[in-house]
């Protein structure tokens, strides 16, 4: 960990990396830089095989601060690189030629803050439409200049001879929500794919700045409606870490059980939806049968069936009862017996295997460049599961495997998700066995949270991969900035590259294998 600070110092003239306390901040090393040195530093990280975890911007009124978070997959070494930008004329060099994942993050920052990235190949808008008047995330009222508005319409297809365009979405059966992908087709083959986002954009990050920490809690489940527990968990962990609230053991274990149940639920739905994408509709109903059991169990403690809001700062909404424990045990028992059915119906099926084998193959290098996360990342053979690599809650006390793939294709992501369900069942069994008594809520949690000044980056492993929450506090009861680094966003980024040259049917198979949740991408 200290190694990287030394290396930056040695390689880049005048760079002053500072080591920080990881338990307090969530990153190991901070470094402030200037626009001319930035490319050298980023290139250094690229050589050291770091991936660009997140790129975000914060408006401190006097200046804008760009934050580049770099990390390595297997041994966490998170480095925060900051770059101050003049708020009057915000310009920064584009890093998209070095890291492909910067391509979308820079577009996002451009439309929300008006920062112009020089050298960016396509500085158009990602989420917003051309009726926007002010930059939404700037603290003051900063109008969008007219020349910027011309950049708004992000994709203007121009048909050539022998090619035509197809809109896959925003209302299309295989996009699972309102994602639009514009495909440039040559017959049945895809020449180019361009996702168009923003149909479900609700600006949760702005909402976070306008309400107290407690009030934002229900929003977390609305971003990823299939894995709300993980989002809930990430948010409460981040705020607890920021305010130094300790959580009783019982709450920690219940959190793990609830999150893992939710993970199984999410993976199950993916299996069903993916098979529906491939044309088999029966597995969809079978997984709903299983899901229903989980939802019954979770409804018993949370009171809702989909967008849970169960965790609180310092503990839980309420305690679990015997009925929950019995229900969970019954579900675990039932679920162990269901895998053989899925094996026969899906995993072994020769049509399914032929449809997914060798489709959407991701290499480790591609995964790093695009910053993909979760089962997609693990399918490329990188055993990065944040529950283990950057353990939180009590996952380090649990025994489970990180399933990895060999080929990085859609079939691998399927197998990984099935194996992850089995591992989640194992975690639930262990957590149930270890579940301690005692209070479910910390005693001294202030009614009004006013965290100390500073920032924090908290990661959790959601069913879709790495969720990062970056919070900047200015000692008020509302966050100055809250950035959500969501896994589906970075996973979708790789889609155009994977889809190129594939058949239309393969594009649907690839899109499905990424397990996208559109409200999470659009936030």
């Amino acid at each position, binding site marked *: 960990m200290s190694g990287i600070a030394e290396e930056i110092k040695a390689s880049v003239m005048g760079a002053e990396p500072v080591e920080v306390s990881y338990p307090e901040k969530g990153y190991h090393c901070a470094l402030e830089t200037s626009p001319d040195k930035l490319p050298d530093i980023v290139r250094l990280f690229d050589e050291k095989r770091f991936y660009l975890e997140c790129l975000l911007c914060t408006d401190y009124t006097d200046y804008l601060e760009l934050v580049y978070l770099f990390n390595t997959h297997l041994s966490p070494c998170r480095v925060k690189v900051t770059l101050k930008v003049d708020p009057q004329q915000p310009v920064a060099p584009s890093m998209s030629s070095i890291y492909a994942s910067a391509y979308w993050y820079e577009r996002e920052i451009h439309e929300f803050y008006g920062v112009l990235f020089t050298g960016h190949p396509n500085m158009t808008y990602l989420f917003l439409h051309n009726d926007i008047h002010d930059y939404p995330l700037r603290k003051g009222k900063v109008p969008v200049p007219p020349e910027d508005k011309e950049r708004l319409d992000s994709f203007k297809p121009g048909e050539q001879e022998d090619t035509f365009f197809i809109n896959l979405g925003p209302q299309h059966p295989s996009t699972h929500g309102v994602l639009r992908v514009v495909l440039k087709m040559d017959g049945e083959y895809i020449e180019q794919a361009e996702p168009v986002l923003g149909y479900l954009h609700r600006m949760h990050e702005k909402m976070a700045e306008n*309400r107290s920490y407690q009030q934002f809690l229900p929003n977390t489940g609305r971003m990823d409606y299939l894995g709300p527990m993980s989002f809930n968990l990430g948010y409460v962990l981040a705020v607890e870490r920021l305010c130094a609230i300790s959580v009783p053991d019982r709450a920690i274990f219940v959190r793990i059980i609830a999150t893992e149940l939710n993970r199984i639920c999410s993976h199950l739905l993916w299996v069903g939806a993916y098979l529906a994408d491939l044309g088999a509709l029966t597995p969809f109903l079978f997984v709903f049968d299983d899901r229903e059991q989980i939802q019954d169990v979770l409804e018993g403690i949370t009171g809702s069936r989909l967008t849970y809001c169960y965790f609180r700062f310092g503990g839980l909404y309420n305690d679990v009862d015997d009925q929950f424990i019995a229900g969970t045990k019954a579900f675990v028992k039932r679920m162990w017996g269901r895998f053989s059915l899925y094996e026969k119906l899906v995993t072994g099926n020769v049509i399914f295997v032929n449809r997914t084998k060798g489709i959407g193959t991701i290499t480790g290098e591609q995964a790093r460049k695009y910053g993909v996360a979760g089962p997609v990342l693990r399918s490329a053979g990188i055993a990065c599961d944040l529950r283990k690599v950057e353990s939180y809650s009590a996952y380090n006390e649990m025994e489970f495997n990180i399933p990895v793939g060999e080929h990085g294709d859609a079939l691998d992501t399927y197998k990984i998700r099935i194996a992850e369900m089995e591992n989640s069942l194992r975690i639930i069994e262990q957590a149930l066995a270890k579940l301690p008594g005692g209070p479910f809520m910390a005693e001294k949690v202030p009614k009004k949270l006013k965290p100390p000044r500073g920032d924090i980056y908290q990661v959790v492993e959601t069913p879709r991969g790495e969720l990062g929450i970056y919070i900047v506090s200015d000692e008020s009861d509302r966050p100055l900035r809250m950035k959500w680094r969501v896994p589906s966003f970075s996973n979708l980024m790789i889609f155009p590259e994977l889809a190129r040259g594939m058949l239309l049917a393969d594009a649907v198979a690839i899109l499905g294998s990424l397990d996208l949740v559109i409200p999470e991408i659009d936030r």
Partner: protein
Amino acid sequence: MIYGFIKGTASLIAGLGVTIRAFFQPVVTSQYPRELLTISPRFRGHTRLLVDPENPEKNKCTACGICVKSCPSGSIKKVEGEKKEGEKKKTATEYLLDFTTCSQCGICVEVCPFDALDFSHAYNSAGYKREDFHYDLVKELMRNRVQ
């Protein structure tokens, strides 16, 4: 290749076996509305006011307004109360909840210092216009008590 062919065929037959078994198994769905499931005790419907156990004529709400301030969506439009003679605190006479914007997060239930709020079990609310979901919880309470 022949081995692959046999394996493939076997996998197809195994799949058929799964579905035909399911075909003869009993259904797992329940036939709503002919069959009703029991609602979980923690089910979150819209919020409701609770009756004061000491005085069944009264609700527990004192119209302090903490829930109004804490609601993230501004769904609690108005809480008003009046003080009756000989009582220390006010009692709510009007509690307007705009259920269309409520996300059932339960913050109001948690912050209430008098534990006057709770979730109802109304799961099948339906209406023709938005105003149908603008509830006055005091009136709802009275109506439910009459029933």
